[in-house]
């Protein structure tokens, strides 16, 4: 019973195993059934979470934009997403003429599936993880690539110019931002000495954000770009390409993209917490795994909230700005950070405090030099031209020219 109190979920899992074994099933089959049931549960829970996330996002978005947000359906508008869902379920599926049916239908599935697949390796608690893959980080990156594929398929399969343009932008953006993301992920891998997420969490006696704040920042920025949310939402910039790759979608297929987007945003926060904020680490988490889960959720919610604030605050990048930010800033910065961190961490003693201080110092130096370089670059550019808009009305002190009256 004690273990039920400290670790209810883990207890349930063990109980489920023992039930299956009690039926005298072969061991392979037990594991197979357990994994299938687990995966199914996890996927369902994650999709249910989206219902809640939609409400949170609309509510916070409303507050940021000085509105109330959903407030009609249910207390505080809590039932609003259900109403949305009902609406979307009842919409008609429209498949455009000349669409590539396979690609068109596969797109949304891959988009959601790629996100949910990430959850398979995330350690939610000491005992609570889908699979302890020893190449977890690589797996996450690989799965991200599948998401990209989904978007391309959607854009191409729709047989629509704007959708295709959106897909082009998606390829450019997602492939580009994978580079700094992978490079910045090297730092937690380096610190932990493993690519398994469980080991990375275990290695975080001090959260890695303290050891590598710049890498954390790069990871955060590039994963927002991977998500394709504001300020990186040019794949669906409505003023330029209508709705981007999903312009031809309707009903539940559109809903899939929607769900994928929201879930991805949450997953980013989750990954950030796991990789840089110490995951389930926290006081007492070792003896009470459920506490670890709570810690992880608190950290994730904070990061999610931060993501929301960014989304509702910043304007959209232009495409050249987006690419310049990546190739001219994030990629070099991440390369420099990784190399310096690797060298310094190798040189630093095994003492954790020495490491913290030295690495913080390195990060500070990188940051300051970055600032210096940027300042110089911007100073060396010609000043931006100011546009003199033509005046619409003559100013008050200007003499108004009267039409001359012809002399009689």
């Amino acid at each position, binding site marked *: 019973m004690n273990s039920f109190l400290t670790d209810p979920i883990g207890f349930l899992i063990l109980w489920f195993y023992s039930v299956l074994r009690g039926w005298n099933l072969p061991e392979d089959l037990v594991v197979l059934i357990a994994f299938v049931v687990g995966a199914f549960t996890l996927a369902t829970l994650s999709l249910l979470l989206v219902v809640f996330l939609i409400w949170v996002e609309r509510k916070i978005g409303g507050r940021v934009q000085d509105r109330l947000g959903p407030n009609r359906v249910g207390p505080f508008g809590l039932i609003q997403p259900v109403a949305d869902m009902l609406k979307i379920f009842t919409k008609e599926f429209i498949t455009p003429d000349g669409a590539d049916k396979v*690609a068109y239908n596969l797109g949304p599935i891959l988009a959601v599936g790629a996100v949910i697949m990430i959850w398979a390796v995330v350690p939610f608690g000491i005992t609570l993880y889908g699979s302890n893959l020893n190449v977890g980080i690589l797996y996450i990156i690989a799965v991200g690539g599948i998401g990209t*594929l989904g978007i391309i398929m959607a854009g191409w399969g729709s047989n629509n110019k704007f959708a295709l343009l959106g897909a082009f932008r998606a390829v450019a953006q997602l492939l580009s931002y994978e580079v700094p993301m992978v490079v910045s992920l090297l730092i937690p891998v380096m610190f932990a000495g493993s690519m398994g997420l469980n080991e990375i969490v275990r290695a975080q006696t001090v959260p890695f954000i303290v050891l590598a704040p710049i890498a954390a920042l790069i990871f955060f920025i590039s994963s927002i770009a991977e998500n394709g949310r504001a300020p990186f939402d040019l794949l669906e910039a409505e003023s330029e390409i209508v709705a981007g790759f999903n312009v031809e979608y309707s009903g539940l297929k559109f809903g899939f993209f929607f769900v994928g987007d929201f879930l991805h945003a949450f997953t980013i926060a989750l990954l950030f917490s796991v990789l840089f904020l110490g995951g389930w680490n926290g006081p007492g988490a070792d003896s009470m795994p459920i506490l670890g889960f709570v810690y992880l959720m608190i950290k994730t919610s904070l990061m999610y909230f931060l993501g929301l604030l960014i989304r509702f605050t910043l304007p959209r990048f232009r495409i050249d700005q987006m690419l310049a930010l990546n190739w001219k800033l994030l990629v070099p910065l991440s390369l420099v950070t990784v190399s310096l961190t690797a060298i310094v961490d190798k040189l630093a003693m095994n003492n954790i405090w020495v490491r913290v201080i030295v690495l913080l110092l390195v990060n500070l130096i990188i940051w300051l030099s970055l600032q210096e370089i940027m300042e110089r670059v911007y100073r060396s550019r010609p000043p931006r031209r100011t546009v003199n808009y033509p005046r619409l009305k003559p100013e008050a002190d200007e003499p108004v020219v009267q039409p001359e009256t012809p002399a009689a």
Partner: protein
Amino acid sequence: MPMQIFFLIIAAVTLISAAMVVTVRRMMHAALWLVLSLFGVAVLFAMLESSFYAVVQVIVYIGAIAILVIFAVMLTRHMMDDTGRQIAKNWWAALVAVVIAFGGMVVLVLSWSRFQVGPGTAPSELLLLDFGKALTAPNQFAIPFEVSSVLLLAALIGSIFIAVERKGGQK
């Protein structure tokens, strides 16, 4: 026995989609079949207990190469899109040659006794670390590793140079 069935299924999927890649008429579909085939290869890697390369296969081939190919297909779609022959006229000659080659190689494979061995001891968990160290150890693969990184850099610069649109009076 279930493993063998699973293997056969995966092999069939991989090979059939590979065959589709080289025969299908629409380039976009060929690219998508390519993705499936590459994914089958990744599963084969996983079955060979090389989860690292399974994942790397997905990252590099599906996440990058296949997407680049799709990109190229989309960029060049006006010309080749779905019209006209996609296969050379004397394809049957190539088919005959390829089948002969396949037969010869299979005979070769089946005639060597060591090809019948089963898998040896399972690779250890620490292998990945050893592999990483071997890639950077000067007396092992440091030089090939560095050379391949130089190759990648050259490819990067070269492809940018080739593909960049020259402004002004380029003939």
